[in-house]
């Protein structure tokens, strides 16, 4: 087994775990954090049609690196992975932007009226437009604080920056968000 591990390009440390343990922890990773990762990816600018693939990539990376993720540190790892996946996908999407369009969600729509659904889509589209006016750092902090409703110390731990930096980025992000909203409202009237 050790010989085989050494032969691999990136030996997964978790290979020594039993399949059952890896599987259980991997499933817990998905169950506990899938919505977090999904929302993060969506609000970082990944279109709905691509969000599924992006989330899968994040969790497969997470599973592959399971042994490297300290207990309680899952969100930090997933956040980093999501940022990288989102960045890569945005780059690729830019080249084929014409081919990818947001499509209605495939689920969770049965309980909503068409009006609710339309308003939800419009609201999310408007939110994404506003978020796109923020720079990447501000955007991530805004999403974690305002949408995920994490505290500044929690965000600081996830992003690995000082709490003060979180506060200042959030302040700037709120300002930019408000300014863009004001601009759009003025444009719409």
């Amino acid at each position, binding site marked *: *087994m050790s010989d085989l591990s050494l032969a691999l390009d990136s030996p997964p440390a978790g290979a020594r775990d039993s399949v059952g343990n*890896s*599987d259980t922890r991997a499933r817990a990773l998905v169950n506990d954090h899938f919505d977090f990762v999904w929302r993060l990816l969506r609000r970082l600018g990944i279109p709905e049609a691509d969000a599924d693939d992006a989330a899968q990539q994040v969790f*497969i990376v997470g599973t*592959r690196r399971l042994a490297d993720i300290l207990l309680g540190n899952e969100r930090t790892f997933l956040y980093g992975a999501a940022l990288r996946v989102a960045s890569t996908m945005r780059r690729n999407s830019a080249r084929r932007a014409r*081919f*990818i369009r947001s499509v209605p969600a495939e689920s969770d729509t049965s309980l909503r009226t068409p009006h609710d659904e339309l308003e939800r889509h419009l*609201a999310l589209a*408007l939110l994404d437009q506003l978020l796109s006016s923020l720079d990447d750092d501000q955007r991530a902090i805004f999403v974690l604080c305002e949408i995920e409703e994490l505290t500044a110390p929690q965000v600081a731990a996830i992003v690995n920056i000082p709490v003060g930096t979180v506060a200042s980025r959030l302040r700037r992000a709120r300002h930019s968000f408000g300014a863009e909203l004001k601009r759009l*409202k003025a444009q719409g009237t």
Partner: protein
Amino acid sequence: MPGSDALLDKPSAELTELLLRVARADAAPREARERALQNVAAAALGLGVLSGTAVLGSRASLLKGTSWLVAKWLAAGMSTGLLGLTVAQGVVQLVAEPAAPPALSTATSTPARANPHSVPLAPESAAPLVVAQLSPATPAATPAQSVASSARAPSSAPALAMAPVAPIAREPKSPSPTSSARTEATSALANSKSSLTRELTLLEQARSALAQRAAGGALQALDQYRSEFPRGALQVEAAALRVEAVGQSGDRALAQRLALAFLANFPTSARCARVRAYSEVFVGDAQKP
């Protein structure tokens, strides 16, 4: 933004709160979560396959450099049908219970290269999608200990077949397995892994070519895939990639037909959203003056 005027009429504070509330409630589609559960099970299995290699005592070289690919595409197979699950179940059984009867025989261990129902290779011939009819798991199938619990229900497996091909079936579990049966199963597993690895490699080539906007290369890999695996385990993935490749190559009409055929044949596929997106673009193009 068209249609958002009513939203923008709301006071800023109220609108901001509304937007954030909607975003906080934005949950992932159920299918995406289920697919992730399947994928991580397969990825965890990938780790297990490595451990299992020691148990199997052979084919170690097969896994070098391909274990990640296998885990990734095995997951894709699992999300689109039950074949991947069949393979996965066998591996889990072999790895987690080396003393237990392996009792599996995968479809990929049965080469189908001389299939008389294979279709012409040229994409410009409006080639229909060759769709294997994946048989649902038999009621007598052994419940997999870790993978099956996250597997999609048999009823979600694509049941339509555009070409009348033989169903891919699992052999019934042997009631009294012997060591030779286990050897046979191990050999079948090794063969299926080899076959699956080849399928994965071809589709990965197609995907990479697409990412580099090399539609010709992607179509070549997909044609090769169809030639070698007319009843391959990853045909749904191949069909989805073909839609994109044909679209990239500029043949929008064919791409549109393939997209519609895909949506009709695989309405539950996780690839539907992407294929539908392409389809809408093609329709939009066709309506332009």
